[in-house]
């Protein structure tokens, strides 16, 4: 790992969400016999296929058992059908296939990337089907994975960035299921049982709660048979109830936590918007000016370029199923974190008060629309897009209409939307580092 020492100029959170399209990919969609939605985009040029099965089974479904969704997902490929973890890994890696499982606050996904040569693809599909439909949840695997998750949670406590992120979500969301970290916390993970995982799996890994996205060099008939093969054995089940509404904070709050690090990590924000929010385009385009466009945003300019206060400085909206965060962030050396936070917050306040200039908006639109083609230039990016559209129920022509909607945004709409959504007097801020106070 040290052999490849790379150090890049920019360290910014990438917005996994926002996109545009002149003419987006034609997404074909249908519903499997037991109620799962299927989304398919054929591609040409490389003999490979990406498949992603997504369940509404993210950490927001943990209830009080924080870490349940993550551990359930983590157990899937440790045993399924007649195979143990070794056999599963050998079957997949023997044909060069790549399997991935992962959890976000909103969902759990299982991904496969394979070559399309039938002799390579079929064993991979057969293995994936068993992982989805017949995971074993063996006691020994459960105990091992749980212990390793606990090791990971302990390691998190050596990272001021992680601790700041956890505190930020806690303060922003209070009792809401988005409040806790998706990997859980030590106290709750320690109490999880194998039975808890099985119950969670049976409740949420069901056809009506599933969607499947297929992107690659396979024809429609093959896509249909892949979807059927992977999901047809799942019970139909039930869609889980909607997540509770998010409560907006009533007053600003700034929390300092001590950590013996050279830098203080700073986050500041409020609950932002849902996926599909009608104000999405003014907010996305406006935030591009404010803090979303990497090396040229206002926040980057004020914090880094003018003052040299931080290596990265940014703001993003993260639209979730219900209100995801609007989040600004930076890191700076001990002794100047309050100054840096003030600069960042003032930049936000000035932006909301004055609104963007016509020139700023024009430049921002040029960047978004001119860069549209790069948002869809690989199968990896394509499947991310389509999976977002599918999971959040966005219109199938979302990518086709994206550029038009960005072009239509006016400075007034941006200012109005920011004023309506972001109250700079209600910001929730967290600072973790050696500037923090004595607790005792």
């Amino acid at each position: 790992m040290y052999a490849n020492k790379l150090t890049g100029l920019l360290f910014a959170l990438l917005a996994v969400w926002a996109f545009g399209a002149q003419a987006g990919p034609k997404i074909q969609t249908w519903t499997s016999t037991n109620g799962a939605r299927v989304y398919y985009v054929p591609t040409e040029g490389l003999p490979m296929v990406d498949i992603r099965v997504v369940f509404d089974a993210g950490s927001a479904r943990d209830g009080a058992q924080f870490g349940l969704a993550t551990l359930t997902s983590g157990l899937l490929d440790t045993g399924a059908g007649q195979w143990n973890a070794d056999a599963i890994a050998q079957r997949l890696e023997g044909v060069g296939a790549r399997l991935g499982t992962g959890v976000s606050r909103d969902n759990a996904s299982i991904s496969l990337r394979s070559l399309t040569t039938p002799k390579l693809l079929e064993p991979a599909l057969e293995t994936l089907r068993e992982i989805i439909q017949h995971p074993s949840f063996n006691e020994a695997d459960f105990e091992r994975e749980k212990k390793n998750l606990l090791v990971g949670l302990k390691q998190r406590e050596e990272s001021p960035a992680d601790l700041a992120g956890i505190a930020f979500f806690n303060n922003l969301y209070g009792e809401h299921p988005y409040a806790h970290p998706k990997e859980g916390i030590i106290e709750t993970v320690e109490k999880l049982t194998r039975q808890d995982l099985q119950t969670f799996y049976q409740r949420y890994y069901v056809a009506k709660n599933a969607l499947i996205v297929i992107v690659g060099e396979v024809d429609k008939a093959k896509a249909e048979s892949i979807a059927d093969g992977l999901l047809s054995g799942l019970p139909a089940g039930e869609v889980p109830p909607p997540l509770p509404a998010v409560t907006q904070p009533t007053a600003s709050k700034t929390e300092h936590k001590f950590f013996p690090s050279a830098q203080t990590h700073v986050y500041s924000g409020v609950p932002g918007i849902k996926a599909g929010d009608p104000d999405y385009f003014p907010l996305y385009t406006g935030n591009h000016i404010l803090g979303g466009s990497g090396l040229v945003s206002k926040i980057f300019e004020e914090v880094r370029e003018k003052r040299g206060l931080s290596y990265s400085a940014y703001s993003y909206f993260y639209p979730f199923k219900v209100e995801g965060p609007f989040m600004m962030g930076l890191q700076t050396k001990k002794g100047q974190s309050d100054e840096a936070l003030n600069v960042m917050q003032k930049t936000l306040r000035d932006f909301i008060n004055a609104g963007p200039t016509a020139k700023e908006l024009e430049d921002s639109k040029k960047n978004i629309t001119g860069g549209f083609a790069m948002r869809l230039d690989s199968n990896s990016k394509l499947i991310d897009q389509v999976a977002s559209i599918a999971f959040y129920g966005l219109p199938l022509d979302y990518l086709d209409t994206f550029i038009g909607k960005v072009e239509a945004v006016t400075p007034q709409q941006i200012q109005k939307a920011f004023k309506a959504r972001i109250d700079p007097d209600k910001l929730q801020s967290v600072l973790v580092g050696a500037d923090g106070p004595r607790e005792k």
Partner: protein
Amino acid sequence: MALSRIIGCLLLAAPLSLLAANPKVSEFKLDNGLKLLVQEDHRAPVAVTQVWYKVGASYEHGGITGISHMLEHMMFKGTKKHPPGEFSRIISANGGSENAFTGDDYTAYFQTLEKSRLPVSFELEADRMRNLKLLPEEFTKEQQVVLEERRLRTDDQPRAKLGEQFSAVAFTNSPYRNPVIGWPDDVSRLTVGDLSEWYQHWYAPNNATVVVVGDVNPNEVFKLAQKHFGPLKPSQLPVVKPQAEIEQVGLRRITVKAPAKLPYVVLGYKTPVLHGAVEEWEPYALEVAAGVLDGGNSARLESRLVRGQQIAASVGTGYDLYARMPSLFMIEGTPVQAKTPVELEKALLEEVRLLRDEPVTAEELDRVKAQVLANKVFERDSIFNQAMQLGTAETVGLGWQRVDEFVDKINAVTPQQVQQVAKKYLIEDRLSIGYLDPQPIPEGQIAPEDRAPTGGAHVR
């Protein structure tokens, strides 16, 4: 735990050409020495430009470590023609994304743009190749930014801190002992004059390779390169001294104490790489050895140490055969809570012993090869990574053609060759071992030199 039962069907008989032929690379050279590599990929109307310079941390000497990376930052701070920040604003207004990276063996700059905007990136890159204007006031701010970057990446990351000090112990005189970002004292004492000299030495068309991958026509790209880069004057480049590492003559150990929650163990064996290899097959055999240990969940370390013996919570292996100078074959791991770093070290060393004492099984070898074959296709999904591979191979002195040979060379590796390289290189005399010794993380205390905590009034 037995690793043997093989169920998957391994299809190594299928040559890569049946799946996807190597993409064609067109190579051009301008009169001033600039090299241009173009690879067509017509799947999307996009092109990536990368400009690679043969300079990086391994070209630096004591006292100025980090200068290549610092200069990389300053390359965004203006030329005679464009004031500071304008480079980025122009790329942004053209819908582009851009950045740069510095490694031991290269400094590279890139833009990804819609294909018709390629001239924008060529014009700007050609301009800053020879006409950088280093402004003292910009430098002063950027030095603070780089020091923040160092705190972020190294000082506050216990494992990165170990990694940095580990390299400094594993290598005695090879420049790989220095961190890319530089030692803090060196970075904070760099001057505009130092940077100016470094820029004059290394930034010239005859020290650069321009790589373009995307929806382009190679001959048109060549014409465009002639137009923008053609007029630039070449330089008399400094002679790069070899700085070959002296022979290691025994095991080396280092412990780094840092506020942390978990211990961590790293092993590094001095190994040859493709560039300068006496036996060309050896680096490929080492690459296979890395795959046998850590090529996925079925590989030995995951299967035996994480699952079977449950000594490690996580493990990893790293070997970069595209380095410019002999490098390290790295193995690292985090012990589970019930085990000590000493027990994990023993288990890792036992796995290395097995590589030396027994040939790997045909099934394992086939699995590594199947993954290499598939990855070759998967890699092509990203034009950026395609360009990275060409640029790296060219810049470390191998030539881009080596990228095409990779699958065939790996396919030719035998179990005996894996054992041979293990016996020759994965031995104690070439080994360095590093431990992260976690120190308690103090809670609720004021740091020693601290005054009254700032912003205390905001505490809830």
